[in-house]
């Protein structure tokens, strides 16, 4: 479920840079809607990234990560054609996994 992510991964000089845009509201639980009701907290809590099926990065997030989160990180090794996959799990148990190929 959830909307697709945008993942870009490019390899240069033995380092693969992975950039991810996620589609998520990241509600803090503090915001009120137009009728004054508090919008319940709803945010991505865990992120996992794999390079060729090996976990290379995990993260834990709170609601202070911005809406439609952006994430960039660097992994040693990796080459064109390698497979990158990124998964998230949010505070309501929803999850999403998307893949990209290293260029």
């Amino acid at each position, binding site marked *: 479920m959830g909307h697709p992510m945008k993942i870009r991964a490019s390899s240069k000089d033995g380092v693969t840079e992975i950039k991810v*845009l996620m589609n998520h509201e990241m509600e803090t639980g503090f915001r009120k809607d137009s009728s004054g009701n508090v919008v319940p907290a709803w945010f991505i809590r865990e992120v996992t990234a794999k390079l060729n099926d090996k976990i290379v990065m995990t993260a834990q997030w709170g609601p202070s990560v*911005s*809406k439609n989160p952006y994430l960039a990180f660097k992994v040693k090794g990796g080459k064109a054609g390698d497979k990158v996959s990124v998964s998230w799990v949010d505070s309501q148990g929803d999850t999403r996994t998307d893949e990209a190929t290293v260029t």
Partner: protein
Amino acid sequence: MRWRKILVPLAVATALGAVVARAEEDKSAQSIEQYREALKDGNPAELYESSGEELWKKPAGPKNVSLEKCDLGLGAGVVKGAYAQLPRYFKDTDKVQDAESRVLTCMSTLQGVDVAKYVNASFGTPEKDDLNAIATYISGQSKGVPVKVSLALPKEQQMYDLGKRMFYYQGGSHDFSCATCHGEEGRRIRLQDLPALATKKGAGSAWTSWPAYRVSAGQMWGMQWRINDCFRQQRFPEPVYASDVTIALSMFMAANANGALMDTPGIKR
């Protein structure tokens, strides 16, 4: 001699004060520039571009067909480069239309959708989100293409003239017109630079950067939403979505922007 003794240090002090103030100003401007640069790498608008493309290609409406046969001015089904030549006159509707009003036409004619619901829906509702996503997709297909809006037909020139007059039209509790903020080069509201929309330079930078992702609200805004919120801040009543008022202003901006390269979708504060 005595005068010089007093005046020289005074002048130096004043000049120094000005230099310090200027340096502070430059530092702020530089910092804001750094902030904007950091945002550009990874524009969430891309997410909307994808969902817009999906909506464009997915069969929908009572007739269960996609929008792929929609004529945006360059022939049925041509999306590439179409946004850069809008608004333009369309023979089938006998109207000058922008991208968003043209999408409404195609939804109505191709898909059999009753578009009144889409026109009347508030911004931020699923209906308007869909229209914004589609406009984002269409605009992205003109990225890097020079704006080329024609005023050759009488209805196009007329729309431009009406837009120009609207641009300077004052009203409301605050006496504002569009020109109050966008009439002169080099002005700001708070820290936001205000493009002078009657000039090639100002219109060129503004027109080519919408639709844009607004980080303040985490929303994707098309030009219709942009104009709608300008009128809200102007203390005017609400412009009707895709009405001639909005298209006339778009025509004024787009034609003034002719030659500038489309840089959509954009990202804004």
